[in-house]
Every structure is written in structure tokens, then in C-alpha cells.
């Protein structure tokens, strides 16, 4: 579904991503893991169109989307939940969700999508008129995910959705992702929390200093001595 081929990217003259190749197959949950500063967010910026890669190609559902604008990428159904939630804090929960419904492809499904979001996060239905900036961290993450779902994603990309959340709430968020996947959604999850991310993933890639250091099925990665030593503290 998503294929990255030989991606190189960076800021100014500093290369952050060095020759990354990875793929996400339809119907799976794939994790992109790595320490702070490994280049995970930079890679996602390339995928979602916020940043143009220096070299390489991004293919989504067979189309070369390298260098497309973010709204064009979203229109194709590749939708990213940005790190730190990045809600429109001075707008209501409802307005935030409706802004996620901007892609033309998703607009005819507005009602069903809204129902889906509210059945997944009932608390948002109660707080639909509240300003998004006044919600708790966990609820803000729900709005961020809900906003992305309103765009009818074919591939949902999440950049560290558990950051800044209490462990129990982080687990709850990951559980929702698992549920979404069970209903057919393909998910690309970027996380620092390797153990939690692998627990809901089918496959994982480990990014170190801008290159893929390891990639395997999630089950295998969880028992890989290198992962155990470097990321799981065993």
C-alpha cells in the first residue's frame, strides 16, 4: 500500500534520513520505532508531503506521490495524526472534526464518519461544543485521531500518539488502533515506546541514525536480542 524507496532527506545541509526503504502492506499495523532524534518524524514529514525528499520515491496505492502537497496526499487517503496532537485549540471539538473532513473524497461520508468517531470516543460527543484546547491530554489525542478518521483514511499514520499521556491512557489509545485495524484500517505507527507499539503491531522497522537498522515481524522483534538490549532494557 505504502512504499518508500531509497528516501534521503534532511534540513538545510544536514542529512537526517539516509536511504530508507520500507513498505506497509494493506490491512496491517506497522511500527516505525527508534530513539528520539533517529529521524522518525522527518520520515513521516516526507510521507505526508510536509517535506520534499532529497532523493527516493514515495508510492501510495501504486501512485508516485513524491513531492505532493499535504492536502493532495490527504485527498488520496493517506492521513497523518501529527505529533503533539496539534489541534486547532480555539475551535470547538466539532469544528476540529469537521476540518478533518476537508478531503473531497471523504465529504459524502461525513455523517457516517462522524458517527463512527463518536461511537469510538463517546466523550467527544458530549464535548462537541467545547474548545479543543480545554480538553485533557487523552481527550485531545482522541480529537486528533477523530479528526484524521474524518478524512476517511485508507492508511492512518500516527506520530507518537502516546507521547505525554499516562501509561493507562496510552494503552487505551493503542487499543483503539488495534480495533480500527480489526475493522480493516491499515496503520503506520511511529513510537518511541517500543514494547507497547510492538504489542499491537504486525511488523516493525527500527530506525537508527536515519537508516533502517532492523526490520522483521513484530513477534520476532520482541524477542530479538538487539531489540531487547537497546530498547526494552532487558
Amino acid at each position, binding site marked *: 500500500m505504502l512504499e518508500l524507496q531509497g528516501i534521503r532527506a534532511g534540513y538545510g545541509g544536514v542529512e537526517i534520513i539516509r536511504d530508507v526503504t520500507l513498505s506497509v502492506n494493506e490491512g496491517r499495523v506497522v511500527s516505525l520505532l527508534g530513539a528520539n532524534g533517529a529521524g522518525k518524524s522527518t520520515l513521516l514529514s516526507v510521507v*505526508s*508531503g*510536509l517535506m520534499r525528499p532529497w532523493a527516493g520515491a514515495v508510492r501510495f496505492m501504486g501512485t508516485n506521490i513524491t513531492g505532493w*502537497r*499535504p*492536502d493532495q496526499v*490527504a*485527498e488520496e487517503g493517506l*492521513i*497523518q495524526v*501529527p505529533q503533539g496532537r*496539534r*489541534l*486547532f*485549540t*480555539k*475551535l470547538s471539538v466539532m*469544528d476540529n472534526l*469537521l*476540518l*478533518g*473532513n*476537508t*478531503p473531497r473524497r*471523504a465529504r459524502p461520508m461525513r455523517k457516517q464518519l462522524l458517527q463512527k468517531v463518536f461511537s469510538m470516543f463517546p466523550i467527544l460527543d458530549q464535548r462537541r461544543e467545547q474548545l479543543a484546547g480545554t480538553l485533557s491530554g487523552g481527550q485531545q489525542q482522541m480529537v486528533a485521531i477523530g*479528526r*484524521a478518521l474524518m*478524512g476517511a483514511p485508507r492508511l492512518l499514520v500516527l506520530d507518537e500518539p502516546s507521547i505525554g499521556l499516562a501509561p493507562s491512557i496510552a494503552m487505551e489509545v493503542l487499543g483503539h488502533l488495534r480495533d480500527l485495524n480489526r475493522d480493516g484500517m491499515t496503520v503506520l505507527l511511529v513510537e518511541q515506546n517500543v514494547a507497547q507499539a510492538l504489542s499491537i503491531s504486525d511488523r516493525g522497522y527500527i530506525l537508527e541514525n536515519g537508516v533502517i537498522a532492523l526490520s522483521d515481524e513484530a513477534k520476532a522483534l520482541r524477542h530479538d536480542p538487539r531489540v531487547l538490549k537497546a530498547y526494552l532494557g532487558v
Partner: protein
Amino acid sequence: MDTLLQIISQGLVLGGVYALMALALAIVYSVTHQLNFAHGDLMVVGMYLAFWGMHALGVDPYVAIVVIAPLMFIAGFLLFRIVFAPMLSAPHLVVIQVTLALSFIVQSALLLIFTSNFQTVHTVLSGKILRFGPVMLAAAPVLAFVASIVLALAAYYVIRHTEFGKRVLAVAEDRQAAALAGVNVVLVQASVFAAAVAVMGIAGPLVAPMMVLQPSAGLHLTLISFIVFILGGANNYLGTLVAGLIIGLSESLSSLYMRPPELAPAVPYLIFIVFLLVRPKGVLERAS
């Protein structure tokens, strides 16, 4: 007493127009984070278009707005795509220089076409007087004031209550998040910029009957809009309106009472400095 009332009402009229100009500037700033130093010149273009329509075609300026506003919307859209969009991520200094250059280009073009002679514009309302009790007001300024307030309220409504307005607010708060949500950020920016230019195309012909047209009048208008924009508190609608009235009033009052009269044009700037000292975040905002 009559003169004072007269002057105050004139100040309010002026202030309404200033507020409208500053609002246009503020909304453009909120989505682009850039200031346009040719802002006032675009309004002068609106005035000269009204002048030209009247002299060359015999069309009343108020009627000409129907053509001028859409024309300036299109021009604004193209101007944004060709000149502004490519340099949005450039340092502020670059943008300031380019928009200053644009200001000079507009002024020179006006000079070439209309010469440096002072021009005046007449409308159906020229010479018409409205009486409000003891106050007699020329009809044209009252129309300009009412139209300014109506336009400002309309802009407020569009921003707060329409889907396009929500996108504008989203882009203003977080461009990247808006883009990821599927909003075409450059299109929103270009539309807002074009709308602001169109508003100048409405305000220009409305105030033209009260002004002496001159190709270099734009810079003063630009500076006044900047002052009102900052005085109002950058993105505070009501604040901008109040600030516009303050500056308009101080300008007209000082033109009557300031001694020596040569210092009158400095008064709005002095008031601006005083407000910056006591209310640095805007007239209606308390410093925290």
C-alpha cells in the same frame, strides 16, 4: 460646539475606514505571517479606478464598485500566487523589501497614468448633507462609515460561521496541521489575500470623494493600518475597531486643535507610542 461635534463625527468616519483597512491587514497577517507594505497603495488603486471610471466612462464611483471589487479580487489572487506565495517562507526582511518595491511600482504606475496632479472624485452624494439633530454631516462620509462597519461585520461572520472561515482560523493557528487535515493552505492564503484586496477596492471608491487623490497617498494609509492593527491587539476584532476609531478621532481632532498645526500629523503616532507603553498587547487586552 458644532465644530467639535462635526470634527468628532468626521474622526469616527475616518476611524471606521482605518479599522476596515487594519482588519484586512490583520486577517492576511494571520494566515501568512507577513506584512504587506503596499496595503495602502492597493486602496489608492481602488480610488484611482473610481476616478478613472468617473472621468473616462462617466460611471458613478458607487456604481463602479460593482466592477472594481471583483477586478481587484482577481488581481489580488494573481498577485498572491505570483509575488507572495513563492516567498512566504523567506525571512521577513525579504518580504518587507519586496512589498515596498511593490508599493513603489504601484505609485510610479499611478504617477505615469494619472500624473502628479491632485484629483478629486465626485459622486451622486457630493454636496448632500444629512442632519442628525444639531449635527450636519456630509452624506458621503456617513456612507463610507456604515459600509466599513457592515464589511467588518460581514468578515467577522464569514470567519466565525462558515466552513471557509473555519479553514482560515485553522491555517492561522497551525498551517501544518491544517495541511495534514486536507486544507489547501496556499489556496486559503490566496483567497484571503484576494478578499483583502477586494475590500480595498470597495473602501477606495467609498473614501475617494473625501480625499484629494495623489499617487503617493498609499504609504500614509499603510502606516496608519499598521498602527491600528498593532494597537488593536493583532487579532482582536473589536480591539481593531476601537483602535481605528481612536486613531481616526485623534487625527481629525489634532487637525483642528494642534498648535503649531504642522505637528498635527504626528499626533496619531504619539498616541500610538503612549498606548504601546500602557497597553502593549492592544487597547482591549490587559498585559499579563
